[in-house]
C-alpha cells in the first residue's frame, strides 16, 4: 500500500511538473512581442517592467521557467492588465461557483444512477432495463452544450420557469435560495451527462457481480434482496463507479464551462472565455494551470479512495 501510494505521488509530481511547463510555455505560443500582445501597444514602461519581472523575459527560456514557477509557488500569478486585479484573487472568487455546480450535479447523478442501475441489474433485459439502457445510449450522443441550450429553450423560454434563464445568477452569500434556483438548470444539465456514464458503468458491473458465487451463497443464506444488493454486490461494483467518476471529472469541468458561458454564471469557465475574448492572457494562463492541477489532484484522490474500497488493486 505504502509503496503504491509513493509511486502515485512520484507520478503526481511528474504530471504537475509537465503541466507547469505546458502552462508556462503557452505564453510563448503568442505571435509577436510578448509584452505588446499581453499589455497592448500602449503599455506604460512601468507595466512592461512588471511583466518582465514576473516572466523573467530578459533571461534564456529555461531560466524564465524558474522565475515564473517561483512566482507561481508563492501564489503570484501576475496581475491582469485589463481589470488591474490579481489573477489569483480572480480565480479565488470564481472557483467556488464551479465547485458548487459540480458538487450539486454529482449528488443528483449519484442518487439517481445508483438505484436505477440496481433495478436494471436485478432484471437484465426487463422493460425497465431496456428503457434505461436505450435512453442512456441515446443521451450518450447528446453533448452537454446541446442539453443546456435545449433546456434553456424549453424550460426557461417556452415554459417560462423563472430564475432559470441566462443572467439570472444570484450569488450564494446574497440569497442562498435564489442561488440554488439559478444553479438548478446547470446542475441538472451536468447531472444528465454524469448519470448516463454512471448508470451504464454500474449496471454492467453489477450484472457481472451478481453472477458471482458469493451472491448465490448470500441468496441461499436467505438474505433479503436489498441487503444482497447494497452489502454484497454494491461494494465490489462501486470500484468501477468510482473509477468512472474520477475519469469523468475533467469532462465535467469542461461541461461546466459551457453551461456558465451560456447562462452568464461568473465561474472559472465564464471568466476563462471572457479572458480569451479580451486577450487577457495572464488570466487564461492562471486558470489553465489551476484547473489542470485541480483535475490531476482529484484523480489522485479518487485513486486513493478506490484503494481503500478495494485494497487488492495496490497489491497488483
Amino acid at each position: 500500500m505504502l509503496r503504491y501510494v509513493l509511486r502515485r505521488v512520484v507520478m503526481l509530481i511528474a504530471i504537475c511538473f509537465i503541466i507547469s511547463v505546458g502552462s508556462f510555455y503557452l505564453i510563448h505560443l503568442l505571435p509577436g512581442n510578448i509584452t505588446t500582445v499581453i499589455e497592448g501597444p500602449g503599455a506604460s514602461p512601468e507595466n512592461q517592467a512588471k511583466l518582465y519581472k514576473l516572466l523573467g523575459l530578459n533571461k534564456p527560456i529555461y531560466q524564465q521557467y524558474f522565475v515564473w514557477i517561483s512566482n507561481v509557488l508563492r501564489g503570484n500569478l501576475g496581475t491582469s492588465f485589463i481589470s488591474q486585479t490579481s489573477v489569483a484573487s480572480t480565480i479565488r472568487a470564481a472557483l467556488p461557483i464551479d465547485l458548487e455546480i459540480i458538487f450539486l450535479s454529482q449528488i443528483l447523478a449519484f442518487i439517481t444512477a445508483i438505484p436505477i442501475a440496481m433495478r436494471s441489474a436485478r432484471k437484465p433485459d426487463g422493460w425497465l432495463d431496456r428503457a434505461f439502457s436505450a435512453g442512456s445510449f441515446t443521451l450518450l450522443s447528446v453533448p452537454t452544450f446541446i442539453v443546456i441550450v435545449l433546456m434553456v429553450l424549453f424550460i426557461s423560454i417556452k415554459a417560462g420557469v423563472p430564475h432559470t434563464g441566462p443572467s439570472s445568477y444570484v450569488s450564494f452569500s446574497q440569497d442562498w435560495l435564489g442561488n440554488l434556483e439559478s444553479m438548478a438548470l446547470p446542475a441538472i444539465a451536468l447531472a444528465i451527462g454524469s448519470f448516463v456514464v454512471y448508470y451504464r458503468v454500474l449496471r454492467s458491473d453489477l450484472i457481472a457481480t451478481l453472477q458471482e458465487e458469493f451472491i448465490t451463497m448470500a441468496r441461499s443464506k436467505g438474505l433479503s434482496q436489498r441487503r444482497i444488493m447494497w452489502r454484497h454486490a454494491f461494494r465490489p461494483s462501486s470500484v468501477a463507479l468510482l473509477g468512472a467518476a474520477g475519469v469523468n471529472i475533467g469532462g465535467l469541468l469542461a461541461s461546466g464551462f459551457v453551461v456558465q458561458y451560456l447562462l452568464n454564471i461568473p465561474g472559472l469557465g465564464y471568466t476563462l472565455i471572457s479572458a480569451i475574448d479580451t486577450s487577457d492572457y495572464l488570466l487564461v494562463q492562471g486558470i489553465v494551470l489551476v484547473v489542470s492541477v485541480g483535475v490531476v489532484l482529484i484523480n489522485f484522490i479518487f485513486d486513493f479512495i478506490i484503494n481503500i474500497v478495494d485494497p487488492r488493486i495496490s497489491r497488483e
Partner: protein
Amino acid sequence: MSNFPQFSVLEEAILVEKPEAKEPLGILFWICVGWIGLNIVGALFANVLPIENPLFQNYSFINSGPSLHHLFGTDDLGRDILARVIYGSRVSLSVGAGAMVIGFGVGAPLGMLAAYRRGRFDTILTNVMYVLLAFPAIIATIAILSFWTPRSLFKIIVVIGVASIPLVYRVIRTATLSVATKDFIIAAKVQGATDRRIIFRELTPNIAPIAISFLLIGVATVIALEGALAFLGLSVNPPTPSWGNMINEARTILQVNPWLVIFPSAALCLFLLCLNFIGDRLRHHFDVTEVKL
C-alpha cells in the same frame, strides 16, 4: 459413430472449437451506416447540391421559420439554415477524420510495436503515455487553442489529433498484448516468420475489429469536442458555418428563432448517435470484451 468412441470425442472437440454464431448486425445498423454515408456525400458535394449559398444574406427573409423556400428556415442574417447545416458538416467531418488520422497514425503503430517488442521501449513509452493521459486533455485543448492564434481548421485538427494519441496508444497496445501472446503468433515465430510478416499478416487483421469500433467512437468523441469548442467560440471563425458555431450564434436569439438551434443540434446528435451505434454494434458483433474503451 458408436464404433469409434475416439471419433465422437474429436467431434465434440470440434464442436467446442467452432466459434459461436455472430450476433447479426440488424437493420438499424445499416440505417445508421446509410445516414453517415449520406452526410459524407452531402459534405463532399455541397457545392453541386441544389441548395443556397450558405453565406448569402437575404434580408427579406430574416428569422423565418421552415417553409417551402427554406426547408429549415433562415437565420438572423437571412441565410438558409439547411445550406448552413450541410456546409457545417464539413467542419465536423474534417475534424473527426483528420484528428483520428493523426491519433491513429501515430498512436496505433507505437502501441502495436510496444506490445509486440515489450522490453524497455514498451516500459518507457507506456509510462510517458500514462503521464500524458492523466493530463486533462479538454483543458489543454482549450488552452492551446486560446493562445495559438489565429485559429484555423488545420490547427484545431492538429491539437485534437495530438491530444488523442495517448488514448489510441493505450487501446491498441492493450488489444495487441491480448493477441500477441496467443499460440498462433508463437507458431508463426517458431516457423521463422519475419517480424514484419507477423505484424502485418497476423497481428493487424486480429486487432482490426477492435481498432475500427474504437475509431468510430473516437470520431464521435472528437466531433462532440469540436462542437463544444465551437460553441465556446474557439473553433473556425464565422461566417464559416459549423454545427457548433451555429448553435453558438443561435444562443442569443433563442427566443426569436428556436429553429436555428434545433436543426444543427439535431444534425450533430443524429450523426453522433449513428457513429456510437455502429461502433457499439461492431463491438458486439466481433465480441470485443477484453478491451475496455
